[in-house]
Structure formats: structure tokens, C-alpha cells
């Protein structure tokens, strides 16, 4: 069972759309209502970062199964300016944009696994996973 959805992120209406898609995929996997909200919130932060810092990018949502475990993987990818100091970007309240600086650290807390790779001038890729408990 691997269902994959790829969504281009260019504007704030794409943020709403990607949340709806993720809810539908996560619901199929059997996530609880509160987990659906946590996933949609994390996704909202990641998608908004793309629009705000890189103007455009994409989000790939996939259902995964590892033995008895089922989960949802979010990959958020852009070719924007990249993050110079990932450690600082992961601190609460640190922002170079107009946000509250809670997006990345917040999204990490809402998900079970979170990896970030970024190269200045080349872009950022974030992979976040939530498992059905």
C-alpha cells in the first residue's frame, strides 16, 4: 500500500488544498481526529514556509507501511534560498521572515520524525513522518 500525492505549492490556496489532501490520506490510514489536526497543522507550517521563503515548491504525501506500522510521510521541497543556520532555524522564536518563528520547531514537535536538509542557494527539503499509534 503506497499511495502518493504530489502537490505544487505556489500560493496560500495551495496551503489549504494540501491540508485537505493530507487529511484524506491520513484518515484512510486510521489516524485519530486529534492526530489529523496535528498533521494538518504541521503541514500548514511547512507549506507556508515554502510560500514565504521560496515562493514555490512541492509537497509529496505518501502512506507507508513498515511491518505492523502505518504512517504518513510528508516531504516538503523547494529550490529557494536555503537555510544558512539550521540549528537556529529550529529554535523557538527565531525567524528571518514575518512569522512568529514557531513554524519549523513547532512542526517538528507535532510529528514523530523530522529531518531537514538545506543548502544555501539550492533549497530545502524536509521529511516528516507521523505513525498511527
Amino acid at each position, binding site marked *: 500500500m503506497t499511495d502518493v500525492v504530489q502537490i505544487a505549492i505556489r500560493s496560500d*490556496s495551495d496551503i489549504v488544498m494540501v491540508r485537505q489532501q493530507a487529511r484524506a490520506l491520513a484518515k484512510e490510514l486510521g489516524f485519530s481526529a486529534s492526530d489529523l489536526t496535528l498533521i494538518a497543522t504541521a503541514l500548514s507550517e511547512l507549506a507556508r514556509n515554502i510560500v514565504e521563503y521560496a515562493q514555490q515548491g512541492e509537497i509529496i504525501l505518501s502512506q507507508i507501511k513498515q511491518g505492523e506500522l502505518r504512517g504518513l510521510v510528508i516531504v516538503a521541497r523547494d529550490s529557494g534560498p536555503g537555510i544558512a543556520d539550521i540549528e537556529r532555524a529550529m529554535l*523557538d522564536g527565531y525567524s528571518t521572515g514575518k512569522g512568529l518563528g*514557531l513554524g519549523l520547531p*513547532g512542526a517538528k514537535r*507535532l510529528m514523530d520524525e523530522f529531518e531537514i536538509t538545506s543548502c544555501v542557494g539550492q533549497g530545502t527539503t524536509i521529511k516528516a513522518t507521523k505513525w498511527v499509534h
Partner: protein
Amino acid sequence: MKTPILKQGPYLIASLQAEQSDTDLLELQEVLVEQVGRFRSRGVILDVTLLDVMDSFATRTLRNMAQAIRLRGAETIIVGIRPEIAFAMVQLGLDVRLSGVQTTLDLEEALAILDRQRQEGMCRD
């Protein structure tokens, strides 16, 4: 506009829809701040019962809205934050960001608080 706004005596009640884009929220902010003046409203109730997500952008916009509305002479109360939304907000650290804005569980309580504040205001004058 996407968000319906009801006028109830000296108050305005805005019912946020399930899927609000950033643009919808900014539009609501502009309309409410203007209408508070036009209707001489004393209070604004933001009903978020239907909202699917309260992320950092929505939280910041609602807080800014409440602050701007206060400068226009009215109080704002946010009503109906669902349990799962509350939990997500705490994890994101957004509960602190919303502090200063009153929240209640339902509309009835919000109306009672606004009535009480109005009466206290009148007694002081």
C-alpha cells in the same frame, strides 16, 4: 467575503469557515475593524468552532485582529477552540501568543462576558 458576520445588538459575531486561507483571514480582519466603527460595536466574537487548523499564521492574525479592534474601542472574544485544536496550539507554543485575547467555550458565555464588561464600563463613566 467568505466569512459570515452577524450583527447582534452592540456586538458582531463572525463565524470562521472550516478552510480559511491566509487571504480569507486578512480580509476578515480588514472588514471587522471597519465594521466595528460603522456599527459602533462594543464587542466582537470570533467563532472558530468549524476551523480545521489554527497554525501560527491564523493565531497571529486573530491576535492582531483583537488588538486592532481594541484600538477601535471594542473587545474581542474567541469562541469554540476544539480540544484537538487546543492541543496542537499548545504543542506549537501558540497558546502563549494568543494570551491577552479572551477565549470562551461557547457563544452564551462570550455574550455574558461582553455584557458584564459593558455594564462595568458604564458604571465607571
